[in-house]
């Protein structure tokens, strides 16, 4: 076990991942990860524009886990004090930053999520911007824990089309992964 931890860390490094968290995620934890990400990038003299783009993707993708992960403690979700679990990572490879977030989703939610993501994946930057603005006017904030703009926001910020994957785990759950690039 102690030996394989090094292998695990090296595997992350090979993939360019420099920040990674897996497990129960809280808002405070996200805020601290965001702070250390900004500090690291500032020390490496990245532009403020790039720093805020990567920071924004980290926040939106982590909030998505906190709001919507189907893996919770206690299980099943039954109080407002649930903890939501997921994995979030930030990396740098081939001159681009990337943010990857993943969490369990219920199998019967997969087609709905996939539909909205595949729509965003096919849109041009300009189409995404227009969609963002029309949705912002339409959505009522009461219907969603966020504003339902999260996926549109990450698709908009990502310099390449978003990448996503669903892996079926069992009869009830699938694992949803989302990757964005700056």
């Amino acid at each position: 076990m102690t030996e394989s931890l090094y292998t695990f860390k090296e595997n992350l490094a090979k993939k360019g991942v420099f920040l990674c968290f897996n497990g129960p995620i809280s808002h405070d934890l996200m805020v601290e990860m965001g702070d250390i990400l900004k500090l690291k990038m500032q020390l490496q003299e990245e532009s403020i524009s790039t720093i805020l783009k990567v920071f924004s993707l980290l926040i939106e993708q982590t909030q998505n886990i906190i709001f919507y992960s189907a893996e919770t403690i206690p299980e099943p979700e039954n109080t407002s004090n649930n903890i939501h679990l997921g994995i979030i990572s930030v990396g740098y490879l081939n001159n681009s930053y990337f943010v990857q977030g993943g969490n369990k989703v219920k199998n019967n939610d997969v087609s709905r999520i996939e539909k909205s993501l595949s729509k965003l994946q096919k849109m041009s930057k300009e189409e995404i911007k227009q969609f963002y603005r029309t949705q912002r006017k339409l959505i009522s904030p009461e219907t969603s824990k966020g504003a339902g703009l999260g996926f549109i926001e990450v698709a908009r910020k990502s310099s390449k089309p978003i990448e996503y994957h669903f892996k079926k785990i069992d009869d009830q759950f699938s694992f949803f992964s989302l990757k964005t690039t700056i």
Partner: protein
Amino acid sequence: MNNLVIEPTKYTPNIVFLFDEKVLEISGESYPENTAEFYSPVLKWLIEFLKIKESKTITVNIIIQYFNSSSSKIFMDIFDLLNEKSREGFDIIVNWNYLEADDNMLEYGEEFQEDVDYLKFNLVPRKSI
């Protein structure tokens, strides 16, 4: 009417709405844990304030470094309210302050500007926020 002052945190902005001065300022960062809950007293105050005749001349200063997508929805709601009042004859100026080196916030400002037709919406570049 009382002033509305909410102290900032790392992830929620400083709210300073001054009744006598008719100056409303939102500054800092905006990615609350529960955005609707955080902004609920802010919207309530604003709605009451806009009912008062003496509130006809208002300056709104937004000085934000980062806001998340759910805050963006709230800002749109605030600008819609102000835009409607401007249409009714109120004299309202919004100053959207953004970091000169950050194209993200300039772009968001430009989009809000395009989405309001009566409200005076200024884009104000700054060296620091």
